[in-house]
């Protein structure tokens, strides 16, 4: 069986950077080996580590033990319990010890180990390295298995497209548990030797501080963060490139960001199912160019991508117009699916959950683009004479990810449903327009 290295060696300097001094690859591998020795003999490790450095150590230790990393969509108790239920032979990896119903190992509490020679291990290509989850159109989570081989080949595609090597330094604002974050901030540093920031900076000032820790930084981020960085008052160090994904990047925002931060902004098109598929420089180009080894094709007006290495094809949810086998234009996505902050949900499922709340006689969630730009938020129309907006939001918060909580809740006496009980998007929109003009 073919094997791929866990980690590509670089020079002896720092590899994981942080404000405390960071780790060289050799220090990193010592920690990985000692953690691997401590891990319980189970098949699945639920990755609840928030620090990127802890995630890298935990993930590599799990690989060395032949285990599979489970990447939860969020770290709410509900999501973790659900995941552990689907994969009974699992335990959790945490940054620091805390109480959890699941058996857990705290990565951060590991003592630093001695130097000396350490092996760079290989991992079999067919080992299931990670399982990521998405919510399907019914709201039921779907699991996606990723073998070590396909993740490594994916990382090489990124490397080729963006010319990333051991002189690069990657700073990511996205969690490692999300496919984009997993590819860009875990697999890419492992497979190119590029340096990586050990945390997950959030506010613009934190991001600037992390970028300033090493030369030629690359920022791996989202439109929400780019907007805050572009409009804020922080001074930016010299950045080599910005790679953005998780939600559609507005071309005007991309332009403003390029001007303000003096750097090219590339956008990635991809999904949990497929990983990164294509990229574009959004400020100047609409058209997407596939990464190496990926082609697009239309069959009976359904779009597929095909991997040249395996010959396998994956159906895309999005509507695309194929220019040629490696270039395409995006023409929108199915109307029922909404994607906010990199998380995907079905509008039908979200509305169902709203209607399950006691006291909601009728209700619907709608996606509403904010007037000033690019970030979708939801609003709710409800018939619920006995419930306050706060009660509705807090009950919904137990059911759905907070990014999908309605920004505004409009109480109405009835919804404009037609004779068959259907609520058309058009009628709902008219009602919303009337309510918001008030």
């Amino acid at each position, binding site marked *: 069986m073919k094997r791929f290295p866990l980690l590509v060696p670089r020079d002896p300097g720092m590899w994981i950077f942080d404000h405390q001094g960071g780790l060289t690859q050799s220090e990193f591998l010592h920690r990985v080996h000692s953690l691997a020795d401590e891990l319980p003999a189970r098949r699945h490790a639920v990755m609840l580590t928030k620090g990127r450095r802890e995630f890298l150590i935990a993930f590599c230790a799990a690989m060395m033990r032949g285990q599979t990393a489970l990447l939860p969509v969020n770290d709410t108790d509900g999501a973790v319990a659900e995941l552990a239920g689907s994969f009974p032979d699992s335990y959790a990896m945490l940054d620091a010890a805390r109480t959890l119903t699941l058996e857990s190992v705290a990565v951060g509490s590991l003592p630093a180990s001695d130097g000396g020679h350490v092996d760079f291990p290989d991992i079999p290509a067919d080992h299931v390295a990670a399982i990521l989850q998405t919510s399907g159109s019914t709201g039921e989570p779907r699991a996606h298995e990723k073998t070590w081989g396909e993740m490594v080949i994916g990382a090489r595609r990124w490397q080729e497209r963006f010319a990333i090597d051991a002189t690069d330094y990657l700073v990511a604002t996205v969690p490692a548990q999300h496919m984009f974050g997993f590819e860009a901030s875990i697999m890419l540093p492992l497979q190119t030797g590029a340096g990586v920031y050990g945390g997950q900076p*959030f*506010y613009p000032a*934190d991001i600037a501080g992390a970028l300033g820790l090493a030369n030629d930084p690359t920022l791996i981020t989202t439109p929400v963060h780019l907007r805050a960085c572009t409009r*804020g*008052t922080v001074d930016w160090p010299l950045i080599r490139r910005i790679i953005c994904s998780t939600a559609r990047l507005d071309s005007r925002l991309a332009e403003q960001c390029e001007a303000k931060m003096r750097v090219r902004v590339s956008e990635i098109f991809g999904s949990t199912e497929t990983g990164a598929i294509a990229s574009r420089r959004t400020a100047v180009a609409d058209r997407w160019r596939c990464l190496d080894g990926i082609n697009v094709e239309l069959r009976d007006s359904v779009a597929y991508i095909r991997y040249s290495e395996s010959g396998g094809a994956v159906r895309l949810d999005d509507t695309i117009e194929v220019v040629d086998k490696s270039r395409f234009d995006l023409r929108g996505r199915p109307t029922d699916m909404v994607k906010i902050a990199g998380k995907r949900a079905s509008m039908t499922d979200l509305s169902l959950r709203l209607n399950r709340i006691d006291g909601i006689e009728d209700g619907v969630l709608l996606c509403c683009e*904010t007037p000033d730009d690019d970030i979708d938020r939801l609003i709710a129309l409800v018939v619920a004479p006995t419930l306050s907006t706060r009660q509705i939001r807090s009950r919904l*918060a137990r059911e759905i990810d*907070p990014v999908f909580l309605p920004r505004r809740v409009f109480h109405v006496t009835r919804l404009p449903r037609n004779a068959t009980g259907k609520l058309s998007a058009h009628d709902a929109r008219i009602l919303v327009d009337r309510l918001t003009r008030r």
Partner: protein
Amino acid sequence: MPELEQEVGSMIIETLNLDGLGVHDIDPEQPLFGDGLGLDSIDALELSLAISRRYGVQIHADDDVIDVFASLRSLSEFIRDNRQR
């Protein structure tokens, strides 16, 4: 309600488009995130931006952001102690 709390409260409502809410609907001790006003991380970024523009204060995650954003009162105190303008 102290003047700065009123000002910060209005800024929150304006920045986040919390229609139908007045400054006096915000309990200064009530959590801004989660169960209270129910704000989320996207809102936190928006607010950090508005605060940096208006008061010249950069919010860092190591400022113990949970505390800073714990309530209107704690946010107003943080701004009072750190404002540049």
